[in-house]
């Protein structure tokens, strides 16, 4: 039983990372209707920045804040410079552009930061507790805490501010919002900026708990996050969190208990995507748009 709970907590910890990156996917999907395949690599680049900042001596928490700020600007610029020119193209063109971004950002990260393993420190003390044989790492508590704060801030921004209302207006009906005087272009930049910052946070939380940062660090995380977003529904922040937890826990328990799937546990997120799409194509919390005319 202790083993079960230990694995459960591992799943929750990973789930918090998947949730965070899935939130980034949702923020972009809601405003621009784009599935951003480059989200993981954007987070990768951000995490390299974080490593660089800590390497030159910044305190880790300060480095995280700086990284998020730089990522926000970077994300907004990517929207303006790379996405805007193709925003009215067919979905296929946009998918290809984001895959191109994926490759470009990954290559740039290797160009600037090399391909060796980089150690990214945590901003909190690493501790382990053993209540009743269950292993609890401080990582798990911090990651879940960060996710909760992140969700709370996003909720306040989206539901309680004029900017958030404009963001939701543009998500719902960009043409109509534009006629009301909402500067849609700037809101789209905001969406990409926020997503990049949230993704940077996901990287900053995930990588220190792994062996180190390498150019492929975010790729598997992105696959799990896509699964999380698909399960939750691509337009729901809350769904992304629930989806992240489902994927994280299912994966951790499969690794522990289903020996037949040893080595091919990637089947779990894909299997979950398939199941959800079969029975609830809009995801668990996604909106199926209902309109009366």
């Amino acid at each position, binding site marked *: 039983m202790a083993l079960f709970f230990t694995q459960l907590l591992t799943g929750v910890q990973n789930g918090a990372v998947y949730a965070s990156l899935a939130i980034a996917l949702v923020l972009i999907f809601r405003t621009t209707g784009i599935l951003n395949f480059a989200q993981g690599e954007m987070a990768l680049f951000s995490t390299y920045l974080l490593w660089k900042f800590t390497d030159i001596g910044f305190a880790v928490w300060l480095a995280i804040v700086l990284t998020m700020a730089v990522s926000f600007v970077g994300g907004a610029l990517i929207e303006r410079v790379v996405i805007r020119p193709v925003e009215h193209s067919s979905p296929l063109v946009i998918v290809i552009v984001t895959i191109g971004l994926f490759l470009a950002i990954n290559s740039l990260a290797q160009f600037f930061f090399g391909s060796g393993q980089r150690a990214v420190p945590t901003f909190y003390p690493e501790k382990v507790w053993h209540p009743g044989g269950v292993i609890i790492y401080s990582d798990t508590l911090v990651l879940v805490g960060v996710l909760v704060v992140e969700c709370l801030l996003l909720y306040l921004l989206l539901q309680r501010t004029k900017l958030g209302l404009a963001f939701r*207006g543009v998500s719902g*009906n960009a043409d109509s919002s*534009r006629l*009301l005087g909402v*500067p849609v272009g700037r809101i789209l930049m905001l969406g990409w900026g926020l997503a990049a910052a949230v993704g940077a946070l996901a990287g900053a939380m995930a990588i220190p708990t792994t062996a180190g940062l390498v150019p492929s660090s975010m790729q598997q995380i992105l696959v799990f996050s896509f699964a999380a977003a698909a399960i939750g529904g691509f337009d729901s922040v809350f769904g992304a969190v629930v989806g992240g937890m489902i994927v994280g826990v299912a994966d951790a328990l499969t690794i522990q208990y289903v020996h037949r799937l040893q080595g091919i546990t990637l089947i779990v997120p894909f299997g979950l995507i398939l199941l959800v799409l079969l029975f609830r194509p809009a995801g668990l919390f996604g909106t199926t*748009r209902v*309109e009366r005319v």
Partner: protein
Amino acid sequence: MSLLEVEQLTGGYGAVRVLYGLDFFVDAGEVVVILGANGAGKTTTLRALSGALDAKGHVRFDGRDVLGRRPEQVAAAGVAHVPQGRGTITDLTVEENLRLGAYTRRDRDVDGDIEGWYGVFPRLSERRRQLAGSMSGGEQQMLAIARALMARPKLVLLDEPSLGLAPIITQELFRTLSSLNREQGISMLVVEQNASLALGIAHRGYVLETGSIVVSGSADELSRNDDVRKAYLGF
């Protein structure tokens, strides 16, 4: 000087030209109607005015050139556009739709205005917490109008407000528009296929045929014009 002065307005979609040099104006406090059949260019005219479409010519609004500006800039200048199909933001609540209508405003009186429009449209008040997409077409049209007026615009562009509404709802809607104009002095440019209703509340009107204005005059003159009666009033 008129509130809105339009000279030689041309425009279209890509290589397809829809408007062939329109001249018209709207004075402050006026309701002006543009009549025309499907495809005459009514919606295109309004979209050109609000910057949602590339167009050429001269458009002076409130003394300033606005042609070539982006829709959000035209909106900020004081032109509210109620688009065809109402432009409801379906997954915001009724109240959030109204609040978004005040996006360009910087004053603190938005809540007061929302209550004011609830007074004019009690149905919206009853449904203020409801998602706007779940309302009937008539209610959504009321919402679209109230939302446009939340910006405290100097001019409201209304694109086929009667579209898809039951006749009795349409009549009620036009009565409301007329009283908004009389009591609050709100200027309106209305494009409509329902000519008799539109002329009933308008001061002046224009008839648009395949991208050109073919007749213009006071609402009374248009109602008496034989061609207009045959083509648009059906008697």
